[in-house]
């Protein structure tokens, strides 16, 4: 097996005549890169950019607000993955600003680790409505779809904020300044959806791309692949995680996504609407759609509704336009203990990953 050291030697032996920016779009990749110290180990000309890899970070502020109101006003049992609970909404000082604060104010908010727990809680509380607030990319949305396909109790409703990963990359590539020269594609999204999803990066945009797993070896193999492609002029979608991300992906999971959910235009917090980038329940599952069943509390006239918290540059961090430590609040007003924005709350947020990985210095400017 080629070790991390071998890959590093190979990469260092490549002659790069200009800086190369490699974007990843997965919080898991960013965590491995940061905790293995890969940035420091690579030649200076190679810049690793964390891109749109955090579904909690881009979950619409209105959806978080709506989830809080369902718990506070409609007295539902609100269940959500743990990451979601501390994401702040924009409300006047002193008002309840997250699901954790709603819980402290007496609302029934419960963290869960699996859609199966949402089902269990609904079955155990047949006379109460249970709302599962589900944010996530394809890998997380597929299990939500599977739970629906298997059969959800009638008192279980889904507030779905599922997102697709590739349309955000496509949006960046179609923009004037994408901000990267090569892509490392997400391993577990590709496991479910199939690596082929990322071909458009190569075929429509002429950028090298490689699917990577989460070990330093797999990530370095992917970096080496895209760097060599840049050097040689060859372009193809490489797969450096072939044992897990197999051709075609998990067809059963894709069928469940397709029968229960449809792909719709969707809003990304602080970024705006990205075409065909979100999931919504199909009409056949309308009986479980929290958006149809409960009053809309999102109050779009609310001050700063939909935006990132004041002073938080999370949207630009998500798009790879700004490194976490370039945010003025990073490590000052904003730390995991006192997070200002969702990128410091979520385990997949680049700010959180950099801070817990020990990055304490402001980033060097280009």
């Amino acid at each position, binding site marked *: 097996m080629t070790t991390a050291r071998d890959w590093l030697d190979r990469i260092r032996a490549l002659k790069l005549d200009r800086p190369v920016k490699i974007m990843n779009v997965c919080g898991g990749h960013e965590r491995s890169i940061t905790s293995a110290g890969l940035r420091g180990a690579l030649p200076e000309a190679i810049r690793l950019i964390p891109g749109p890899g955090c579904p909690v970070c881009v979950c619409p502020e209105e959806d978080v607000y709506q989830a809080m109101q369902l718990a506070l006003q409609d007295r539902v049992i609100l269940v959500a993955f743990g990451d979601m609970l501390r994401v702040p909404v924009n409300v006047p000082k002193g008002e309840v600003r997250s699901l954790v604060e709603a819980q402290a104010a007496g609302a029934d908010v419960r963290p869960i680790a699996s859609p199966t727990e949402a089902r269990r809680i609904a079955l155990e509380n047949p006379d109460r409505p249970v709302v599962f607030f589900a944010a996530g990319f394809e890998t997380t949305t597929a299990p939500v779809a599977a739970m629906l396909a298997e059969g959800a109790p009638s008192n279980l409703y889904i507030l779905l904020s599922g997102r697709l990963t590739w349309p955000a990359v496509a949006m960046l590539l179609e923009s004037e300044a994408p901000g990267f020269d090569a892509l490392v594609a997400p391993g*577990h999204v590709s496991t479910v959806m199939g690596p082929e999803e990322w071909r458009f990066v190569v075929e429509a945009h002429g950028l090298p791309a490689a699917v990577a797993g989460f070990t330093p070896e797999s990530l370095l193999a992917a970096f080496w692949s895209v760097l060599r492609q840049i050097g040689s002029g060859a372009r193809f979608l490489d797969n450096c995680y072939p044992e897990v991300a197999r051709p075609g992906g998990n067809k059963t999971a894709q069928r469940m996504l397709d029968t229960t959910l449809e792909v719709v235009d969707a809003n990304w917090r602080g970024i705006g609407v990205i075409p065909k980038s979100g999931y919504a329940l199909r009409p056949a599952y309308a009986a479980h759609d929290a958006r149809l069943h409960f009053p809309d509390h999102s109050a779009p006239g609310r001050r700063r509704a939909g935006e990132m918290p004041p002073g938080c540059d999370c949207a630009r961090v998500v798009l790879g336009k700004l490194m976490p430590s370039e945010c003025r609040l990073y490590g000052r007003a904003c730390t995991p203990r006192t997070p200002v924005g969702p990128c410091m709350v979520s385990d997949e947020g680049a700010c959180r990953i950099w801070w817990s990985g020990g990055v304490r210095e402001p980033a060097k400017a280009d």
Partner: protein
Amino acid sequence: MCLAIPMRVESVEGHLARCQAKGVFRDVSLFMLQDEPVAVGDYVMVHVGYAIQKVAEAEARSAWELYDQLLAANGPGDSPPS
């Protein structure tokens, strides 16, 4: 959140499997693997309580090693590894 963890299948009952990783046991849904046979002793990648893919034992071991290092470096995150 998109990080799946490999686990060993210890028992199977319908679409439900009891799985184990490094001494930690979890109930895992095999619903998304219903079109492939999954047997005791197989390894599966588990994400939010659902098996998303079968993997070889070697792949499981290298992933476990990695997660040990991540855990040692960062401490456990907010979301339980299910």
